[in-house]
């Protein structure tokens, strides 16, 4: 019945999976906030659908991370009993949901990244991860289509929608760089065939985003030295609030069975 937080081994393969699983989980958490509050009913349903896909991916990957760690941690212990500093999601997904422009632009950035990642992970040396990727890649293609359609629609819609979209880009763009920062975890994954160095996806991602942002009529902000560092466990101040809410029941009902 102890409910102290768990700690997870600093094994690079486990860390690599946590980056994927946590990013999908926190993105799902944010997207699900729209449920019941979207601009039209179709979008309530579409955003909930994406959140469900991401949640499914998160569950599969976290489960696999727990298996590779070998300490008996299941998806729920990993999601609900880790401390903030042990979460490995990129910072971009933990930012507040913002308005609809922020949401579809973040979806465009993240789904483009995930599409490239899952495509590569289909040939992971870890058969389980490869299988997860085979399913995820189909889901994420739809996410990307949905996000891109909306970005173009808002970019070419009204003056206000273009203005809001540009503001969203100005806010979010600088968080994109974190996706492609490399370190020993990437090196290890690449070396063992677990998955690609995330940095190796940068060129393809840049190309897809440039085409999209061009079509939407957006001005791409200049690159800056700003680097978010969520995937190394140093998050934004938003993360603590996400977790205090998400983890409340598991923390408050020790030994509970749900």
């Amino acid at each position, binding site marked *: 019945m102890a409910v102290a937080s768990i700690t997870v081994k600093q094994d690079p393969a486990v860390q690599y999976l946590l980056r994927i699983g946590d990013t999908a*989980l926190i993105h799902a*958490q944010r997207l*699900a*906030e729209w*449920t*019941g*509050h*979207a*601009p*039209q*009913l*179709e*979008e*309530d*349903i579409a955003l*909930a*659908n994406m*959140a*469900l896909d991401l*949640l*499914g991916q*998160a*569950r599969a990957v*976290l489960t696999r991370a727990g298996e590779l760690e070998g300490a008996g941690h299941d*998806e*729920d212990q990993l*999601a*609900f009993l880790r401390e903030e500093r042990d979460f490995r999601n990129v910072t971009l997904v933990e930012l507040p949901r913002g*308005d*609809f422009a922020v949401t579809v632009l973040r979806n465009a950035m993240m789904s483009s990244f995930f599409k490239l990642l899952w495509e590569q992970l289909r040939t992971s040396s870890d058969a389980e991860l490869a299988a997860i990727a085979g399913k995820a890649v189909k889901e994420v293609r739809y996410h990307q289509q949905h996000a891109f359609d909306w970005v*173009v*629609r*808002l970019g*070419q*819609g*009204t003056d*206000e*929608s273009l203005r*809001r979209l540009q503001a969203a880009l100005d806010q979010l763009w600088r968080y994109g760089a974190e996706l492609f920062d490399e370190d020993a975890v990437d090196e290890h994954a690449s070396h063992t065939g677990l998955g690609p160095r995330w940095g190796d996806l940068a060129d393809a991602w840049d190309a897809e985003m440039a085409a999209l942002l061009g079509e939407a009529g957006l001005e791409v902000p200049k690159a800056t030295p700003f680097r978010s560092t969520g995937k190394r466990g140093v998050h934004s101040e938003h993360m603590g609030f996400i977790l205090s*809410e*998400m983890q*409340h*029941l*598991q923390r408050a*009902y*020790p*030994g*509970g*069975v*749900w």
Partner: protein
Amino acid sequence: VQLQERFDARIDAGEFVEPKDWMPEHYRKTLVRQISQHAHSEIVGMLPEGNWISRAPTLKRKAILLAKVQDEGGHGLYLYSAAETLGTSRDEMLHALHTGKAKYSSIFNYPTLTWADVGVIGWLVDGAAIMNQVPICRCSYGPYARAMIRICREESFHQRQGFESLLTMMDKGTDAQRAMVQDAVNRWWWPSIMMFGPPDDQSPNSAQSMRWGIKRVSNDELRQRFIDATAEQAKVLGVTLPDPELRWNEERGHHDFGAIDWTEFWNVVNGHGPCNKERLAERVQAWDDGAWVREAALAYAAKQEPMKEAA
């Protein structure tokens, strides 16, 4: 007159009325009111349960809840579509909701205060909804009846999930969890049995709706069926229903039950329940916040038109 006779004959024969068929104006209006009210209930109903998505206690329960709330949005869509076949647009119906002219099910004006409320809504509220809705699968208006068949199938699934989640807590959980379940049952029981509406002798529109095949079973009869079914399920769960007068009546072959507080019922119907103002305000806020998005989508579509024509 001939049209009216043909219509009546059709109803009597138990045939479906379809959108292109002639129908009395009052029949159309009654249906629009009922279907749109039902659609509004689905989308307002997303709020109390949606309130717990971010806090669901396991990832599996989070997925189940999110899928359920998404289904409710889907039900809203089918129902608005069914109502649109009667010549009223979704925007008109939403306008009526947002301005307080249209109603939605009063049950959603109660707050969800603990995680157990989510399970209890599945068990009791969806259970009552199904009891109300199954007869509508045989409703005389085709599009409504067909929408209801699909909806009832999904609602049954939700109801079983809700019951199962409560059963897990009651059977395998801690004392604190069992207390949480009992507390939620205590708060939701009476509002749930109010979902069948006022007693038959105070339900003036029922007769006409029965005649038209829009309503098939009376409020009190549905309520009795629900109570009979639920009392047995409560025993399986191991919870106490908060009505000291609830007991099996051998003679009637039904459960007797205590007096319903109709004052509370009418207060909530008339806008004075715990969450009426907040629910409506939340819907209106979401709609208003989304206005620029809908406008952008329209503007974009309009710009594409000439291009399509030129192509």
